[in-house]
């Protein structure tokens, strides 16, 4: 099966367009790929991420399911066993809770519990994240909980180009991938995206800004804010590196260690509430790998330990540039 896109050039796309384009390309490339979820077919997805797939690939490969997240996730296990490559959408990550027993209990374990007999080539896409005034459970950052589920990969792109390259890799990956798309990024992040086949390997972090004094380690939409913080601090003469993890599982431990060893100071930023969020894992990893290079405690910038709040309160909850900058300053001053 040939690649659909072979331009060799680049296009300026939003993250949403990059995702949509990638779904088109992967479905064209491999006819085992099937897309399923709530409103993904006739409506093209509530954010239009799956727009045009139904018209192009037909009702057998692009399927509107009943509102049953557990069976959406559970059916992917069977589809994979039957030799297909399911790409399921959970309409919002908060509703993956309805499917937790299938995602964490089954999808993630299929390879292990059958000792490799079955290959879980399963991708679960879900939007999440704050800043767009959605109702409850639409914005929650649950990646820390999924990171504790062994067997699952958790991929969280921060740019349009990575959204394409990581989604293509996720769909082709033989392991189950939870692919998380930041709501604010759908239209709020755009950039140059390579035409044609574009793969970004899972588990390789990206240096989004170079710098030597301190590194901000983060993922997904918060990379955007970290870069803005780094840029504004640069004008003050501070050299702030930004490391975009891209996937939290697998974690690029070496890149984290390299960046922290080099800079000696680090800030980890996440949208999730503080306790039990993935930032803690990054701090613990830094402690393991490069404790002796640390010149100051690693700072965490997080949401607060409350459920994701209603509209009037969300700007207080979600870390913003100013909180990131404050943490960077605090960490630089600490000794």
């Amino acid at each position, binding site marked *: 099966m040939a690649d659909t896109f072979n331009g060799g050039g680049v296009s300026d796309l939003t993250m949403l367009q990059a995702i949509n384009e990638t779904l088109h390309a992967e479905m064209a490339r491999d006819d085992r790929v099937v897309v399923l979820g*709530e*409103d993904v077919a*006739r*409506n*093209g997805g*509530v954010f239009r991420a799956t727009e045009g797939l139904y018209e192009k690939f037909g009702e057998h490969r692009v399927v*509107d399911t*009943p*509102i*049953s*997240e*557990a069976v959406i996730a559970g059916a992917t296990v069977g589809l994979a066993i039957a030799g297909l490559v399911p790409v399921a959408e959970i309409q919002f990550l*908060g*509703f993956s*809770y*309805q499917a937790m027993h299938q995602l964490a209990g089954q999808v993630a374990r299929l390879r292990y519990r059958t000792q490799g007999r079955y290959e879980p080539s399963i991708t679960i896409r879900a939007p999440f994240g704050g800043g767009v*005034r*959605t*109702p*409850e*459970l*639409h914005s929650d950052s649950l990646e820390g909980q999924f990171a504790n589920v062994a067997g699952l990969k958790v991929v969280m792109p921060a740019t349009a180009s990575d959204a394409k390259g990581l989604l293509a890799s996720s769909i082709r990956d033989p392991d189950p991938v939870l692919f998380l798309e930041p709501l604010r990024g759908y239209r709020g992040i755009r950039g140059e995206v390579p035409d044609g086949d574009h793969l970004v390997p899972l588990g390789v972090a990206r240096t989004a800004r170079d710098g030597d004094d301190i590194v901000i380690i983060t993922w997904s939409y918060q990379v955007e804010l970290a870069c803005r913080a780094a840029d504004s601090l640069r004008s003050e003469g501070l050299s702030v590196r930004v490391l975009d993890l891209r996937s939290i599982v697998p974690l690029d431990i070496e890149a984290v260690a390299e960046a922290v060893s080099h800079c000696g100071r680090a800030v980890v930023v996440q949208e999730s509430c*503080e*306790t039990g969020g993935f930032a803690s894992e990054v701090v613990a990893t830094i402690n393991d790998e490069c404790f002796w290079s640390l010149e100051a405690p690693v700072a965490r910038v997080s949401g*607060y*330990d*409350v*459920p994701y*709040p*209603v*509209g*009037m*309160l*969300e*700007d*207080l*909850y979600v870390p913003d540039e*100013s*909180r990131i900058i*404050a943490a960077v300053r605090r960490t630089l001053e600490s000794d």
Partner: protein
Amino acid sequence: MTIPSDAQLREILVDMVMARTQSSRLWNLQRQGQVGTVAPIDGHEATIVAATHALDTDHDWVIPQYREPLALRRYGPEILERFMLYSLGHPAGGHIPDPIRVLPNQISLGTQIPHAVGIAWGMALRSEPGVALVFFGDGSSSEGDFYEAGNLAGVLNAPVVMVCVNNQWAISTPVHLQTAADSLADKAAGFGIPGVKVDGNDAAAVYDAVDEARKRALAGRGPTLIEAVIYRLGAHTTADDPTRYVPPEDLEAAQRNDPVLRLVSQLRDLDLWDDAAQEKTEAEALKLIDRAVEAARSAPLAADALLDHCLSADSQRLARQRSQLLDARSPEAGGHG
């Protein structure tokens, strides 16, 4: 068969017209960027209003999904006030004050049905008279929670009235892709409880079905599943474009069956309704909603409200976070404050 009296039918119509008027006002407010996502009520009025008019507000609970609040006026003006707070994104919107027996909106589809069964069960345990009436959509009827709750209600013989509002759509998904069952009421057979299908555009029929289910439940004869068949006349929400998927001819047919117009014409024939009544009701509806918006806009909000009501008392972690938040918001910090 219990038919609402003429006076009751008129009260029902007043609430229906109010709901529709306020819903379209809300739609406009959303378009002006003044409130968050809105799920219009058009087509749902008869079912929701008539169902709740069959209840005893002092004893019976209403557990809504998210489309119902504007039609719950019978439970008191606080419902509208709180709903406007909710629509503006104010946390107090979730607090419907004691002793009103109405839960706030539920966004996680189907999750409210187990809550309703728990409330009904709890009332039975405490030998309190009353039922729990829960609304949910045709889409929500595919969630495991619906089935688990219906099945448990059957086993416990809990006094719960399950009202499935079948408006034919779950966002873009038509009900025939939601289930192959002939009728959503057929799902009752799996719970060993009665399943009743009713014309949800017929206020009297809905009233009767709920009244009967309620009496059954109060007599200790357990739950009932009611499927109210209607048609969603508007968009799913302000974020939706139904012209992408709703067949225009279906919508036109449904519009001819509009529950508000239907009851209006019925009551006009009985000389219980006229243009003046219509205008007066609409004007009153707008006055009330605008007042509620105003009140919501000026509702106080503490600097650290974000952290309130998560736990009964701050943990060490929350206490640290509270001072960080207040520090960041203090004027000197140049934070949000």
